[in-house]
């Protein structure tokens, strides 16, 4: 699996991230690091604890990271959640987190697959 194929799988912005990072090597390096990024976990925990101020920051971080890496799907949903938490945290419903999780899992799985193919 190539980096490009990995991005195609998640409808990521491969061209954008390629030109910004100037090469596959750097994209791959940070995509792998993303597997250990704590912002999604932090978002889950803070939302469960109904700590919306902290949840906003976690969503904000997740949004920034996924934007940097060109994970378009994850970026868009985390942006929606970020703005919601910023302006109307009282409107939060658990299905929103489910949507984020859906994108996160998809992204996570694709990167895992890429990682497995490079190790093979």
């Amino acid at each position, binding site marked *: 699996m190539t980096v490009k194929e990995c991005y195609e799988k998640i409808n990521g912005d491969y061209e*954008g*991230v390629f*030109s*910004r*990072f*100037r090469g596959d090597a*750097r994209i791959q*390096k*940070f995509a792998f*690091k*993303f597997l250990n*990024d*704590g*912002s999604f976990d932090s978002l889950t925990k803070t939302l469960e604890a109904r700590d919306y101020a*902290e949840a906003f*920051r976690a969503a*904000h*971080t997740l*949004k*920034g*990271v996924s*934007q*940097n*890496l*060109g994970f378009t799907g994850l970026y868009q949903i985390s942006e929606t959640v970020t703005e919601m938490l910023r302006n109307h945290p009282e409107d939060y419903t658990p299905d929103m987190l489910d949507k984020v999780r859906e994108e996160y899992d998809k992204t996570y799985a694709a990167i895992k697959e890429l990682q497995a193919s490079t190790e093979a």
Partner: protein
Amino acid sequence: MSDKSKLKEKILIVDDSEMNRMILSDMLEDDFEILEAPDGPQGLAILQQMSSEISLVLLDIVMPGMDGFEVLAVMNKNQWIEDVPVIMISAESTPSYVRRAYELGVIDYISRPFDSLVVQRRVLNTIMLYAKQKKLMGLVTEQMYEKEKNTSLMVTILSHIVEFRNGESGLHVLHIQTITELLLKSLIKKTDQYHLSHADINMINMASALHDIGKIAIPSEVLNKPGRFTDEEYKIMKTHSMIGASMLEDLPFHQDEPLVKVAYEICRWHHERYDGRGYPDGLKGEEIPISAQVVSMADVYDALTSERVYKKAFSHETALQMIQEGQCGTFNPLLLECLMDVADSLVEEMKSASLNTKNEKEMRNIAEEIMRYEEMEGSNRTLLYLDQERAKNRFYSSISKEILFEYTVSPSILTLTEWSAEKLGLSEVTLDPLKNETVLESMAQEDIQKLGELLHRTTPEEPEASYVCKTKIDGEVKERRFICRADWSEEEEPVFRGVIGKVEDIVHEDF
């Protein structure tokens, strides 16, 4: 390669997301040395320790705890923002956020997603811009320094020509300068009615060396006559003040130079007396410029304490008494007070007023002056000195097995040496330590409060305090002594800014 890495500019990245720090670091680490901080307090701690070494800060805005705006506020308060450029790197592109960041002194804004070329170019451009500015400031300072040094040198040469013709050693001019400086510094502590800045004092001091240049026109048989003057000779002698003034007035150029103006006042009026019985104009009281009043007193004191062909030197005490009693004419009562106030240091300073120390002192004065003139450059240099001091302190504290701490009130941050942090189970930088559980376990709230009150009762003049109480260090609870030094601001109404200190075991006398 190792040489190159030493020369690399340092960039501080403050961002709570490790991913973002890594991405930026990766884009920049070939050309720069990267320092990272995961939150505001740690970023500030790094700035506090080494701000003059840091060429640029990349700052995130939305962060837990202390956000980027608060970091900027502290950077403004400590004037770091003037020397260290900050580029905002937040994912936040709301116009009100960006505007507020610019208002707080941010120089540029890099939006996400990060583009490696854009990041590299912006960072490099900003650093180059600041480097150019710093270089320019350095050049200006250098030139000012050279100019002042040359002026001072010319004045010294000129006044010595007069002195040597006068058969004096050259020490007279140095003495006059020494006394003048002491009197003026004492005077500005007493009153601001004369509106004297440090620059003015320096100027008067330099110009005082010229007070007797008119003597160059006095025939040498009068000037160097080994006995008392006849009335006629005394009359000729007295013309030296007006002649000196005319010489300056007739200068074809530089009439507007402050030095020339002050020197004119001093030459013409340094033999006037406060009651109007001096010469050449018989000016009275405050009609006599303060520069001339001070030099006149300095001149009299030095004449009394020096040996002349026709008289022996009077002692310091006798000279003071004669001046106070008005035996050498009437002086401004305020200046008489100043003379008594500086009496002790006068003896010391006159002893050490040799040619060399004087030059050194002048250099130091000029350097001080430049630092005052150039507030911008000043803050820069101060930082540099502070850094050197800190480097020393870091070394001392690293070899000392004692609890050493520093606390700043705003922001409320406790900084510990590595060793101390380990013994107390705290991190090296603690935000809001007064609400920190580990801190409160080490020391009772009541004792913290008492120590705080004790420190607030100190003064900028006597900032030290010591306090004994039970503390828990490395699991061991016992009585220990805090030795502290409060940090007061230099404003007129000093503000308590924090404290540095150590905690030591109490050594019993019978031990």
